[in-house]
């Protein structure tokens, strides 16, 4: 024991001596740090040294790109993923029947992907048959050929309730889906059939106008049955994460980065740009910005809220279109907000310009309706968009704001609360977040000043918030919706009576009838007319929602990078970029 004591005090004293010396000179401080690290893990230190030497060697003359989308993705299984960052990665490592290609100006347009051609036949019973012919020579990243059977397997896997994919409903137009998804029928009855290795037949219950976009949607990308079956962890290992896209995963360092390199088995291998794309996984928006400014990242799309305005003003941030709407959702079953006049009054006094210019400050567009600009109307991408055709439900011109407020006060008086007298105190709920809070405070003061009503604010943990919104346990709540595919259906379908995302608890047979009508017809003009009528009811007549702004996608790309392209669904494509 006595010996032990001596050793301890010796250790203490020597440790202190080292630390004293460390304070004296910076040189020895370095050595201390180095020795500590080395002592902690000599073996690791050796391998890292070797590795970094290797890395330095190979970076010569290579074009490596580093981008940051978000932190660690929850999953990169094409069928299970439901996040945009995951979808971007999946888009680089897999390819569907249809793919997104550059139109030369940075906009993504659909183009033949794994399928080189397809035929569409409208059958006598109203169903539609697509026959896709696959490209010659398409291969998985391990060299095996991609077959129509791979697609058949993957589509059936997506529909199978046991897969429990969030986005299974994306293929709800496929014949047999309704029975398969509820478990009433075997997944094999889904009308997706490989006629031979090169030919895939898909039968739809109706002529879905956005079906080709679905064929380019990540959830429908093919996966390898032999890798996926019985291995829930297949996405975590580069040896089992086999894709058919332009890039393949070479390393996943959890919470740090996912590296993808060119897939030499990809049919367009010669034209690919970066030798390696590193998806850096970061949590903190300040760190992303600092890393971009210091040149460690070439692309970022998240920014600290308080820095946005400066970078926007200086033109360093580019703003891209994004199909989404930030809105206020009224609980239509609430005693107070069951009156559409009150909802409309609350909507009219929102000064959308003020919120966009002074609160959110990310170049968003004040919303004049629910379906945002950029969503296709009957003529598709070439014609006027849905918003242009549908017009606006109230004016967001600055000079009209006072008139809007007058109208709102009249409505409130009509509802029995002149100047807000006798109006009960109501509550606005949002999930804990600085930006949502700032918007909530702005709304609170607008409602208070213009209508004379008292609104209290309540913030909730994200998960609790989702639960109370879903259950209709609120009066007014913040909400937001991002399109899954470029069609008004993606926005309007959700307000159907008892719909899974119908947070407003809205139910109007007239509205449901328009949605049914839109889904029943194959004529694009008729279909869109029904959707416009539906939106007229939802916003114009019933004011179920108070849209605030249409989302935008801000991003920063290094000046020397060319050739990136983008869809307003939020997908960026880096595979054909070059560095000048």
């Amino acid at each position, binding site marked *: 024991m006595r010996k032990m004591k001596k050793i301890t005090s010796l250790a203490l004293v020597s440790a202190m001596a080292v*630390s004293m010396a460390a304070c004296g000179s910076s040189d020895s401080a370095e050595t201390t740090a180095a020795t500590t690290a080395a002592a902690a893990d000599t073996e690791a230190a050796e391998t890292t040294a070797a590795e970094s030497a290797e890395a330095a060697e190979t970076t010569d003359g290579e074009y490596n790109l580093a981008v940051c989308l978000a932190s660690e993705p*929850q999953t990169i299984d094409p069928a299970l993923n439901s996040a945009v960052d995951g979808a971007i990665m999946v888009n680089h490592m897999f390819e569907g029947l249809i793919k997104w290609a550059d139109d030369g100006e940075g906009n993504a347009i659909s183009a033949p992907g794994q399928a080189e051609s397809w035929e569409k036949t409208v059958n006598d019973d109203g169903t539609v048959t697509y026959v896709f012919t696959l490209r010659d020579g398409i291969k998985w990243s391990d060299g095996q050929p991609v077959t129509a059977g791979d697609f058949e397997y993957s589509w059936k896997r997506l529909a199978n309730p046991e897969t*429990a994919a969030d986005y299974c409903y994306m293929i709800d137009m496929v014949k047999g889906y309704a029975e398969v998804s509820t478990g009433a029928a075997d997944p094999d009855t889904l009308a997706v059939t490989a006629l031979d290795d090169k030919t895939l037949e898909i039968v739809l219950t109706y002529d879905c106008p956005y079906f080709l976009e679905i064929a380019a949607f990540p959830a429908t990308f093919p996966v390898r049955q032999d890798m996926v079956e019985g291995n829930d962890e297949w996405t975590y290992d580069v040896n089992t994460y086999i894709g058919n896209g332009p890039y393949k995963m070479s390393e996943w360092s*959890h919470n740090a980065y996912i590296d993808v390199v060119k897939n030499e088995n990809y049919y367009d291998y010669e034209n690919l740009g970066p030798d390696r794309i590193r998806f850096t996984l970061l949590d903190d928006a300040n760190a992303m910005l600092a890393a971009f400014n*210091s040149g460690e990242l070439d692309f970022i799309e998240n920014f600290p809220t308080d820095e946005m305005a400066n970078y926007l003003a200086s033109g360093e941030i580019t703003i891209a279109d994004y199909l989404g709407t930030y809105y206020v959702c009224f609980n239509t079953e609430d005693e107070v907000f069951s009156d559409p006049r009150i909802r409309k009054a609350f909507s009219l006094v929102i000064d959308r310009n003020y919120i966009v210019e002074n609160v959110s400050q990310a170049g968003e567009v004040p919303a004049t309706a629910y379906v945002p600009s950029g969503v296709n109307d009957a003529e598709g991408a070439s014609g006027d968009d849905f918003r242009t055709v549908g017009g606006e439900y109230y004016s967001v011109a600055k000079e009209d704001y006072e008139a809007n407020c007058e109208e709102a006060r009249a409505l409130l008086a009509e509802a029995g609360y002149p100047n807000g007298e006798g109006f009960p105190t109501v509550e606005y709920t949002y999930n804990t977040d600085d930006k949502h809070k700032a918007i909530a405070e702005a709304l609170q003061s607008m409602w208070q000043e213009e209508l004379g009503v008292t609104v209290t604010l309540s913030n909730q943990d994200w*998960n609790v918030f989702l639960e109370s919104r879903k259950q209709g346990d609120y009066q007014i709540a913040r909400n937001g919706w991002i399109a899954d595919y470029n069609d008004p259906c993606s926005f309007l379908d959700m307000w159907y009576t008892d719909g899974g995302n119908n947070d407003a608890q809205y139910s109007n047979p007239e509205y449901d009838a328009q949605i049914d009508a839109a889904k029943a017809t194959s004529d694009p003009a008729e279909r869109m007319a029904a959707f416009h009528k539906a939106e007229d009811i939802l916003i114009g007549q019933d004011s179920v929602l108070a849209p605030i702004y249409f989302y935008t996608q801000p991003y920063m790309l290094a000046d020397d990078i060319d050739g990136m392209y983008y869809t307003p669904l939020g997908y960026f494509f880096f595979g054909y970029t070059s560095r000048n």
Partner: protein
Amino acid sequence: MAKYFAKRIGMAIVTIFLVTCLTFLLMNAVPGSPWLSEKTPSEATIAALNAKYGLDKPVIVQLGMYLKNLLRGDFGVSLKMQRNREVLSIILEMFPVSAKVGAIALVWAVLVGVPLGCLAAFKRGKLTDSILRVICTLGISTPSFVVASILLVTLAGGIASLKIFPTIFDASAGWRSYVLPCFALGFYPMCYTARQTRSAMLDSLNQEYIKTARAKGLKNGKIIFKHALRNALIPVITYLGPQVAFTLCGGFVVESVFSIPGLGRYFVQSIQNRDYPVIMGTTIFLASFIILMNVVVDLLYKLADPRINLTKGGE
């Protein structure tokens, strides 16, 4: 001694069992579910997910199953944060990163904090003492995310000409990546340790045995480091024990700011995500670690002061 340890281990097992049950019941009592998102999956999908991961059973049955699996070393799989990946492999992969940063941070905190505390006590009331007091007060009152953010926007990329250290943590790039996070993480413990040491030193410097040592003609250095410090270390050790567990398991804020792929984010975000197995895994891991550190602290007491009797003190 053996009896004492047997007792400690027994108590540790009971504690971990209670922590497990309590956490399990509490987290299930909080509203929300791992499957909720801005776009709610269909009822059928949620039912399928609940069935797949056993969430459709009553909570008490789930708890029983969890405990049974735990005995076999099976912590389950993540439901959300890294879907389908084993919780144990997440912990085992992320912990070493956090532990390395945390260990370096604590080592410098102690190696600098203790001598500075001694110095301050020895120079009591002089300029050195005042300067140290200002630094330590600053360090204790500044939250680590402020320290981290200041470092980030100055030395790690915020100001281009001052950029000395990489912005994105890269373990393979050597010591440079460690400097700022370890400094940010260790600054508070360093200041706290220095303050603790100073006041404990002042106490012991007034003791009779120090006067005796002086009377014997011993040198100052020997008095301070050999006689006074040993006595003064007790409160420092008490503080450092649990602190080691917390620091080694990852400081969430510092890890987030410096993009360190550590365990910290799993403590905080697993709760926000209602990723039940990850909440359980990280909680049990941290709880075990704290219990272990408390045992180590007891042993260190014995080393620092042989008069302490563990067998009696432990009761």
